[in-house]
């Protein structure tokens, strides 16, 4: 099991977001957290990466408790949050190099160019981030996935701002990652219809998180 969420309880602003939420992500599996805005998808991802501490429960990544991973987090997973941590006054490639240094992801200029070409960003590699559109910025963020060697990908609304052509490309990237033994947990407000993806529906109104099917791997409560 690459990711295990055990009996998570979370309150935010006096509202219960999760009650005894359980979830397991296997190797070579894609899971999509689907729910309306404010239903708790981002909170769940933030808990998984250790940004938010649940009121009770445990999160285990690759057999290690998230609180004990510490500085090795960057080797265990890659997280692409909704707000990309990019510097607007840096160029596309400088931003990716800065991220690479912080994440201990080593890559050559040739490899970077190759990955930028995949998302049609090669011509923009020296352009400042502030000059790019939202869709282009999103694609720059997605290049990180191609450069990273982590097996667990945690993605918050990865398809936002993308056109249909790039959505197709990203789906191919996901399927390739799964084929190579990688796992993906992504949050989305719509059903993305990725082949063989387990959908986990999160609904704030009912104060619960319930899977669509009754598979034991998705045994959230209530």
């Amino acid at each position, binding site marked *: 099991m690459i990711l295990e969420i055990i009996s998570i309880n979370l309150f*935010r602003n006096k509202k219960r977001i999760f009650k005894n939420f359980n979830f397991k992500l296997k190797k070579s599996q894609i899971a999509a957290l689907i729910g309306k805005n404010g239903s708790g998808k981002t909170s769940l991802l*933030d808990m998984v*990466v*250790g*940004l*938010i*501490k649940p009121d009770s429960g445990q999160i285990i990544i690759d057999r290690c408790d998230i609180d004990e*991973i*510490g*500085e*090795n*987090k*960057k080797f265990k997973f890659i*997280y692409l*949050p909704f*707000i*990309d*941590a*990019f*510097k*607007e*006054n*840096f160029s596309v490639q400088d931003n990716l190099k*800065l*991220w690479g*240094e*912080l*994440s201990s992801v080593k890559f050559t200029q040739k490899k970077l160019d190759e990955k930028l070409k995949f998302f049609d960003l090669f011509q923009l590699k020296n352009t400042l981030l502030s000059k790019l559109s939202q869709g282009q910025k999103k694609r720059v963020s997605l290049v990180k996935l191609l450069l990273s060697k982590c097996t667990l990908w945690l993605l918050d609304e990865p398809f936002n701002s993308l056109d249909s052509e790039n959505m197709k490309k990203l789906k191919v990237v996901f399927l390739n990652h799964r084929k190579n033994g990688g796992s993906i947990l992504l949050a989305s407000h719509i059903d993305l219809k990725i082949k063989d993806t387990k959908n986990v529906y999160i609904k704030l109104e009912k104060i619960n998180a319930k899977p669509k099917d009754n598979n034991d791997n998705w045994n959230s409560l209530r």
Partner: protein
Amino acid sequence: MMNIFFKLLKREIKLSIDRISIITSYSSFFLMSLLIFTFGIGPDIGKLNELYSPIVWLIMLFSIILISENFLMHDYRDGSLRELQYLGYSEELIIFSKAIVMFLILIIPHFFLIPLCSILLNLNLTELISLSINVILGSPSLILISIISNLLTIQVRQSKVLQFVIIMPFYIPLIIFTTSRNPNETSDIIDLNKFLILIGFFLITLPIVLLSGKMILKEVNK
């Protein structure tokens, strides 16, 4: 540990090179305020000589409060503060590296601003040396307090008013020790005791800021 710290320091320096405008705005603010005081007090050399320390510290205090926002708030707004956290960098190291770079950035302009002060405020060599040491030893504590002030602003969702109300009292002891004048002191003797107090103040401020900063950064994501 050191490797991680140097990575953070390298990142901060890289970002700061791009923030060269901070140095120019800091210097121009400092210079303009100094000129206002000098012209305001008039040609009375004795009065200027007596007031040089409070004048310089008052200007420094306000300029540091003004520019400290560039170091933390920007990182918070573009998500890079969160990025550092989920990549596994400890909050203490994040704050410490920011404080070091802030100190370096702010201390550079003083190499030409303080000699200029000595001309405008009619300081002799001993007073000039004393003021320089005073600034070098006092500004780290000032910077650390301003960092906490910014973190509190982030925590209380960017209310600038609270920043002043909560943090201003913490500046007062530092200002008292930096601007106070020993009645027995003559202009030819450097008061070492004052410097020792400033070093002591820094040694007290550093752990308090690192610990409280860590707690605030953990709370910010909730």
